[in-house]
């Protein structure tokens, strides 16, 4: 079975976001593999360890910098990579078209991805890819069992879990609680540079979203500290909410 994992190179989750000339400044920012995708890579490796997956192919769309995300996945244990070269300004639609094109050529049995990217957080790409390819999509999974050409996926649902059975091929996107991604071992890191990574041009697609402006969320105002008997605190808090925060009570 061939498992393909889509990974994205994102800002380090601890990076400080700043705007420069109306754009997000990326100079000096540490880039990492999207933590949600890292979970998908780990899931693929575990399928390989169980003897279900034979080959794990990593696909990333983006600039040459995305190569680092591919190499990290290879160091963790994936077999080969494909870098789909695309302008970083591509939106979710254009991204999905480019990925779907690359996936089609690979014809994998399972397509894994994180359910969301830690940077723009739009949660669209896996769903769009499934739609373009005409494949079923199971989202935010926390476990998966493969038997023959069926996958039984457990995912989070309000107040419980949902179990979905899909026929393969399918797009399956992971919740972080699926697994604990391994550290790339030294052996893995040393082997990663010898594993093949192909580059491909992105299929042409116009963005559907036009970005008008970036702005940072307003700075959080200092809170208040109430130190008194509980009843007095409650009264003061209610007054503060009504008069200062101006919470409307209907």
């Amino acid at each position, binding site marked *: 079975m061939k498992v393909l994992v889509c990974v994205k190179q994102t800002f380090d989750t601890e990076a400080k976001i700043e705007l420069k000339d109306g754009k997000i400044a990326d100079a000096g920012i540490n880039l*990492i593999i999207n933590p949600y995708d890292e979970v998908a890579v780990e899931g693929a490796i575990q399928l390989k360890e169980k003897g279900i997956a034979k080959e794990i192919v990593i696909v990333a769309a983006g600039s040459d910098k995305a190569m*680092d995300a591919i190499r*990290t996945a290879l160091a963790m244990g994936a077999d080969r990579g494909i870098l789909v070269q695309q302008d970083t300004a591509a939106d979710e639609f254009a991204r999905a078209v480019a990925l779907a094109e690359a996936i089609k050529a690979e014809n994998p049995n399972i397509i894994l991805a994180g359910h969301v990217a830690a940077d723009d957080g739009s949660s669209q790409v896996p769903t769009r890819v499934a739609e373009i390819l005409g494949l079923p999509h199971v989202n935010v999974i926390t476990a998966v069992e493969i038997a023959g050409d069926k996958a039984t996926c457990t995912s989070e649902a309000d107040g419980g879990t949902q179990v979905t059975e899909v026929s393969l091929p399918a797009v399956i996107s992971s919740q972080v609680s699926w697994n604990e991604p391994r*550290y790339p*071992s*030294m052996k893995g*890191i*040393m082997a990663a540079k010898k594993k093949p990574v192909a580059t491909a041009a992105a299929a042409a697609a116009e963005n559907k979203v036009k970005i008008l402006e970036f702005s940072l969320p307003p700075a959080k105002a200092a809170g208040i500290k109430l130190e008194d008997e509980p009843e007095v605190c409650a009264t003061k808090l209610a007054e503060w909410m009504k008069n200062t925060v101006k919470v409307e009570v209907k």
Partner: protein
Amino acid sequence: MDFSLSDESLMMRDMFRKFSKNEVEPLAAETDRTHEFPMGTFKKMADLGLTGLPIPEEWGGAGASYLDFAMFVEELAKCCASTAVIMSVHTGLGCMSTYLYGSQRVKEKYLRALATGEIVGAYALTEPNAGSDAASLKCKAEDKGDYFLVNGSKIFITNGIVATTYCTFVKSDPTQGSGRGITCLVIEKDTPGFTMSKPVAKMGMNGSPTVELYFEDVKVPKENVLGEINDGFKVAMGLLAGGRVTIAAQGLGIGEGALDYTVQYIKERQQFGKPLAANQGVQFMVADMAAALDAAQLLVYRAAWLKDNGLPHNKEASMAKKFATDTGMEVCTNCVQLMGGYGYCNEFPVERMMRDVKITQIYEGSNQIQRMIIGRETIGRF
């Protein structure tokens, strides 16, 4: 001049960082309190191939550079200095001694097991009466044909309590003067006549127990000689030149860890109606620390780079060791100062860091000894 790291080194550094933050830091305070060797962490490092970084793959190592190894010790030290010295001694002295000076037979016997972290290595040079003046060591070894008979003791041995191999320096020819007639032997634990003390009580580095070793008629096979018989002091000094690079990395890392923590703290702690960080007097202290740590890092990386490129690095390693560990000490002292009474309490990590960092100025050649080396190399003959 190129200051960039290779793609592999960057990937390694990310992994070292993540591992240290997630697996090592959460145990640091506990390890300091219980005084227990963090064997669980050592095993995790073994599983990831981190116990023999600069040893070639054919011997079970990772085939990484000495610079990668120094960065690993630095990252560990940011989180837990004890774990950092354990790794510095195990790999830098335990593995490297057999790799650089062991015969094929010795390598087969010990190196793979050491590099893969199956066993732990120790280095025993210091004696109660031979510290800075290690050349005057007295631990006796009589040549008995196919083995040496060892009698004497060693003190302050890192990893001593858990090691399987002890790279031990003995006086094999007492007729020769100081620094000569010394042989380096690999002595195995559980060899009859080889015993050790309980860990000594120390100021810091509590997670790295330090013991005294006693040898009473201990028979060591001749095949366990590292380097040449009666020429072992060269081995001791050769290893320490490399070892100093990672002790320097340790002093640097402890300082960086302390400064990182303190910078967060001074942004949050309010006095006089504003964060401590808003005072220029505080900012200047932070600036001096940041600049000194950066200079220390450059010295450490340069020394490692020289070693990786097979260039002389004796003076440079000593400079890095002296400067980085003095800087680490100064930074930790200032970080405790900036955190006030809280900095002095063991609820906050800088208290432990200040206790831990002190020894980096003393072991693997005190900083006075480093100055002697630098002075000698700088002044030359006269």
